[in-house]
């Protein structure tokens, strides 16, 4: 069992999202929330109570959800368009492309319970393609915060940022990794741990697992660099190239298919700039079996032990 231990305080990042959104909305009347019958699952009940007129619930209608967001932005609002990530992205992908990205509207897309957070509800409710889908559309920033602090910072950033952004949040508990007061910078990785033998690049719910893997590797004398790469697009090319050159091997970890997501984005930079051995960990191109998110992450080789084994195997293949 390599999932977070009971001793850790775990945070549901949705709380950081709504606390930040509410405090910003109290200062800025233009901030509105739009949801698809997801007031509870998006944790917007507090927002609804404080700003009833500024919570627009279009019902179970995701195409209209995103279209309405684009229209609100046209009228000068700063809409945070919230929904389960699987429906927000899959059901309304063309609205994201045409109404938000191509139209360059100031819409904040908030994918709640992303990845395999809905675990045993099954693959219909998993959102393990959204990095790939949205990364392929021009003009949308893609951000997957790793903890409560980064979530709050990214939400604050999104409200100030002029343009489309997709925030990919989870409901699966994660420990705090970043210091209080951390500021989010789009396109910048966070060096959480330095090392010269191998680099692990992760985001979202995988970053804390990567940190634990680095501890396991350290016990065996392997010095691991850990980069938290919340910003999948734009991506921190400089940090990736430096990691490739200075550590010679890169493992990526994501709660997403290995096709087209963080691992692919890192590989694009590595192959064109500083080719080194890589291993992409993620959902291996299958519809996952029944299980919780933490069970499935372990199952797909992303327990701290699993990540550490992958990293040490990769190091052995270095020429």
């Amino acid at each position, binding site marked *: 069992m390599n999932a977070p231990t009971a001793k850790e305080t775990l945070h549901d990042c949705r709380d950081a999202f709504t606390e930040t959104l509410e405090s910003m909305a109290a200062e800025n009347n233009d901030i509105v929330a739009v949801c698809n019958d997801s007031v509870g699952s998006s944790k917007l009940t507090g927002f609804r109570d404080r700003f009833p007129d*500024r919570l627009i619930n279009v019902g179970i209608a995701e*195409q209209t959800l995103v279209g309405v967001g684009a229209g609100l932005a046209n*009228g000068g*609002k700063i809409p945070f368009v919230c929904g389960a990530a699987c429906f927000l992205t899959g059901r309304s992908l*063309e609205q994201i492309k045409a109404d938000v990205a191509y*139209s360059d509207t100031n819409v904040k897309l908030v994918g709640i319970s992303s990845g395999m957070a809905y675990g045993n509800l099954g693959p219909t409710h998993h959102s393990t393609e959204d990095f790939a889908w949205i990364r392929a559309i021009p003009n949308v920033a893609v951000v997957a915060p790793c903890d409560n602090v980064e979530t709050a910072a990214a939400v604050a950033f999104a409200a100030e940022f002029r343009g489309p952004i997709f925030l990919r949040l989870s409901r699966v508990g994660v420990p705090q990794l970043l210091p209080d007061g951390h500021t989010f910078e789009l396109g910048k990785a966070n060096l959480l741990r330095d090392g010269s033998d191998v680099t692990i690049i992760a985001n979202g719910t995988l970053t804390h697992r990567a940190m634990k893997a680095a501890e396991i590797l350290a016990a065996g004398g392997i010095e691991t660099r850990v980069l938290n790469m919340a910003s999948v697009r734009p991506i921190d090319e400089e940090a990736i190239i430096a990691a490739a050159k200075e550590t010679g091997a890169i493992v990526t970890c994501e709660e997403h298919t290995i096709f087209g997501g963080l691992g692919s984005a890192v590989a694009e930079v590595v192959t064109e700039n500083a080719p080194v051995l890589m291993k992409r960990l993620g959902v291996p191109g299958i519809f996952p079996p029944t299980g919780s998110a933490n069970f499935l992450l372990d199952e797909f080789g992303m327990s701290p032990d699993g990540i550490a084994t992958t990293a040490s195997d990769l190091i052995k293949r270095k020429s």
Partner: protein
Amino acid sequence: METEMNTQDLRRMANKIRQRDLRAVFEAGAGHIGGEMSVIDILTALYFHVLRVDPANPLDPQRDRFVLSKGHTACALYVTLAEKGFIPKEEIETFLQPHSRLNGHPNRTKVPGVETNTGPLGHGLPVAVGMALSAKLDGAPWHSFVVTGDGEMQEGSNWEAIASAAHYKLDNLTLIIDHNRLQQGARLAETNNLAPFAPKLEAFGWAVQEIDGHNMDEIVAALSPEKVVAGKPGCIVAHTNKGHGISFMSDNVAWHHKVPSAEQYKQAMAELQEAAQ
């Protein structure tokens, strides 16, 4: 802003826009001329009688919003925007040319006066619902208008938005359905017959009017603020003809995006010029 045109001037303007649209499609060798001819009277009434928009200040926060959801008839919008002064009239010559900002579908980031990028059908109405909600939140007086095709109403997203607009009592939103009875490949009635539209919209809680979409007096009257029903979004079912104004195109499914030959162009232009007399 200029004064509103009377209906006689509007008819003249619509004829002028038809002629320029025909020429643009002929010269570009592409376009959606059938649906352009059906919507031009509506566009003319909106831009020269109804919309509070200012070419000198295209992003005025208090402007009325107009969304051409049937974005494939962009050429008609470009010609109308040029006549209104949003873009230079001579720029119409660049329609569909490499690097022209006058693409086959309108782009708000490039063409002043365009509010949202349309093309895939069923997008404009949800966006217009968001616009109308925004005005309601601010207690602002501006109005949102959206034109869809009748075939376009087959897109389910429209019916999501129709339900939302009624729920939010968006009486600052007007949907105009360009009901020309023809879609790309066949008649609406032979494809997925949503007609009649009025009872369906009424059942959702909309205030519906039915008009002859080529009768300028009826168009102008239907768009009058006096026709707004408090608490209800408004729908105008505009009965039109695809290819209207050109005898061999009118109500002919073949002219969805066909390009006239030189001979057909000459005849079509002669018919429009004669109608202008």
